[in-house]
């Protein structure tokens, strides 16, 4: 059954697949970070907070707004950009060279990174491969928009 994007169900589906692929994520190592995702659309933006601990996504919740000081960083962008990334991952099995998180966020034109603390910002890069492979799990999920 398809899960809608954006929704906590979408992130929960990735969380379950991450748990199912423990060997892969153990190989990538500890991931300890809490970050925000903002999906802007025609109406109010949807905001989610993802908390990773040890080797897994420990918690995901939707919030009204994200206080930058309470998370390491926030990745924000229009629903169309997120959709393009998700479609690309589903088509290729993983993000191609134009749709990985570092590329999409690089100049802040597609997705934008914001942070209150440069150490929090650096955590995106400390755990980059785990975060990328987490989103690449989208290839195993039916997604509707």
């Amino acid at each position: 059954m398809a899960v809608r994007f954006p929704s906590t169900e979408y992130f929960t589906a990735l969380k379950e697949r991450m748990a199912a692929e423990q060997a892969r994520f153990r190989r990538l190592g500890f991931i300890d970070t809490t970050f925000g995702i903002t999906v802007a659309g025609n109406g109010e933006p949807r905001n989610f907070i993802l908390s990773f601990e040890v080797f897994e996504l420990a918690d995901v919740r939707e919030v009204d707004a994200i206080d930058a000081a309470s998370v390491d960083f926030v990745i924000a962008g229009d629903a169309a950009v997120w959709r393009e990334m998700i479609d690309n991952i589903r088509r290729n099995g993983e993000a191609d060279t134009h749709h990985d998180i570092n590329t999409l966020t690089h100049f802040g034109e597609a997705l934008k990174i914001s942070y209150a603390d440069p150490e929090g910002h650096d955590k995106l890069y400390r755990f980059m491969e785990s975060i990328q492979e987490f989103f690449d799990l989208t290839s195993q999920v039916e997604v509707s928009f």
Partner: protein
Amino acid sequence: MGYLATKDYFEDRDFVDKWLYTIRTGELDLSWMKAATEKVKPHAENPRRGLIYRDIDLGAYGYSNLPEKVRRNRSFAPRGAELPEGLPDAQPWVSRKSELWAHNTDGYYEEAVTRQWNATTDIPWERLEGVELPEATGKALSQLMTFLTEVEMIATDTPAMWLPRLNPEFIEVRAFIAAQAMDEARHAEVFRKRALTTGHGLMKASPMNEMALKHLRDADSFSEMSVALHLVAEGNVLTLFRFSEFLSPTDVDKRIFRLVMQDEARHVGYGMQHFKWVLEHFPQKREVLHSHLDEAENISFASGAATELTESFIVLAGGGLKQENIAQGVKITTAFQLKQMHEHFERLDKCGMPERKSGDRSRLWNMFEMGKAAAAEAGIKF
């Protein structure tokens, strides 16, 4: 031979007799079983994570109560062991906690250990079979890889040469520094392999870059080394890796840069925490670190603008040698250089040295302001 034992044991009759006596009689001394040490029973607070250093931060074995000046142990003895008479003076250079400590050092080490990767088996090298990059892009990629191999070899040497100089009481810092040396050795390996797989072999070494690397290697103290290596150089290289990932022509290059950036960001994390620690706990060092930063910024500015790096970056960023490629490449490379400077000052500010965001204190800040103005005039965003 730099070191001689205090005795010639082959000629020491008592020593040899005791060895033979034990073989003949099986009579044991067993005095070591009465070691005057603390008995503790550690357990993993989070079994998913395993038994980490933080779980054994207990009593005399822990790091929480380390004194600022370690005077009791100058040997190779591990923290918490009984120190009998006769231990050698290992002459550690660094026995002051504020010279090397950082909040969460043990955490950075544990993260490093679990996030190790293998340049031989974790990179899908087979995907490069049949990949032919255009000549200019291939040569630019190989030049970048040559430059980075040069950087990573000194980044291996520098932490490694400090290891035996650190008092063994600081076992967590020593472990982190050892893991960093391993990270850097792997980076040198992966960049060398990628340079050769372009088909263009290695390209040219960089005198400007090597001057900067020598500055890293020859710091007078651990803190100065850490500021120059972890904070300035690796901070710059982290930005470079992120841009390189963005510019990568293949998914193999993307994966390489994602993996190296993780290690680099961890080193920068330690560097920031150490810098904060030293400013808070050893404020007398502030001016010394300012002086060291003056030179580190001078050299990193020169190294960042080295022809071998800048031009290869421009060609990679623009995707070729045509005029429009070069124009695009210059835009992206300028944005990269300004981003490096911006993040450098942002980190110093966060660590407690906001005063460097001023032309009176930092000549790099002047260059940053000048670069921003020139970029704005040229319509370049960063």
